[in-house]
């Protein structure tokens, strides 16, 4: 009878060891499944986001500044041409949640976010300055070049046009011209006219108008 007790204990021990082994295998299974980070999806999403915001890319005006017109024309095949890793994968590109490009249903996969500005060029802005000695006009920040159209009235001689004190146009005999001048783009510029007292006429400054907005670019790729 004592031998039988031993046998029961042995069988119980073996059952416990089996249980421990099964639990161990299950935990290992879970760890292996949890370690699957889909590196190729992540690579594809990173590649698409990086190529979209890179300096010199057809969709940007400079690094991290998207061109609104190019973004509006974006589609899946253009994205593929830009970033081949996204080939044949479900793809979703969104700006602040607004879908820009969508192909297939990218449910899982990898998501990459980038903070970008979207530059919208909406035609030209025109600022007119009535000519008088010391008359000034302001050009906003972000304008690198502007067209200055000097149109003096009768008996008026405009000698100099300055941008923030720097001489950009000068003619001792009088200006009557339409010229492109370069401005410092990182600060607002003050355009100043130097002429005789009692002068009349107009100076028009024309520059491209830009609306700049900050958005979050989200790229999801699910191969």
């Amino acid at each position: 009878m004592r031998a039988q007790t031993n046998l029961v204990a042995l069988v119980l021990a073996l059952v416990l060891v089996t249980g421990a082994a099964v639990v161990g295998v299950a935990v290992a299974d879970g760890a292996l499944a949890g370690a699957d980070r889909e590196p190729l999806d992540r690579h594809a999403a990173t590649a698409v986001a990086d190529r979209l915001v890179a300096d010199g890319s057809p969709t940007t005006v400079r690094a991290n500044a998207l061109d609104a017109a190019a973004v509006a024309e974006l589609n899946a095949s253009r994205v593929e041409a830009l970033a081949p890793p996204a080939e044949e994968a479900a793809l979703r590109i969104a700006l602040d949640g607004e879908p820009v490009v969508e192909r297939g249903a990218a449910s899982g996969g990898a998501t990459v976010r980038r903070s970008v500005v979207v530059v919208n060029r909406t035609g030209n802005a025109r600022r007119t300055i009535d000519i008088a000695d010391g008359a000034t006009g302001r050009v906003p920040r972000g304008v690198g070049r502007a067209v200055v159209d000097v149109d003096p009235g009768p008996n008026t001689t405009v000698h100099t046009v300055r941008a923030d004190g720097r001489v950009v146009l000068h003619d001792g005999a009088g200006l009557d011209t339409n010229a492109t001048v370069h401005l410092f783009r990182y600060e607002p510029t003050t355009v100043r006219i130097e002429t005789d007292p009692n002068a009349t006429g107009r100076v028009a400054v024309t520059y491209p108008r830009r609306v700049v907005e900050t958005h979050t670019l989200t790229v999801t790729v699910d191969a």
Partner: protein
Amino acid sequence: MSDRSRGLTPVVGKGLEAVIVLLYVASLVAALHGGVLPEYRTAAAAEVGDRTLATAADRIEASVPSPASAVDVTRTVDLPDTIDRAAYRIRAVDGTLVLDHPDPAVSGRVPLALPERVATVEGTWESDDRTVVRVRGDGRRVRVILS
């Protein structure tokens, strides 16, 4: 029951126990090494292969600098020496990175996303050798060489 068989009972009982334990351990080892372990090894190797390929592609893409009149970049890329105890090779073919491994489940390919000024990507990396990416070029055309 005779006295002699009474004396034998504990011996037979212990012997039986020992045989049962031995059989049990043998079957457990067989189950783990025969089914579970190789399966895990293959799954882990495929995952490491994917990661190696993605890492290599990331490093190559990151080593191309922004446009400049002269480009000369040399970077060491850290890759695992072996995957599933076998050496492998990474090749650049037509703008695609190809991983050659004796096990087809580990092998794979991934296209590279490079700027248009990159004219060619060429070369081969052996996993047990030095893995260096070189980028050479001028303002218009850039070459990427794996060596």
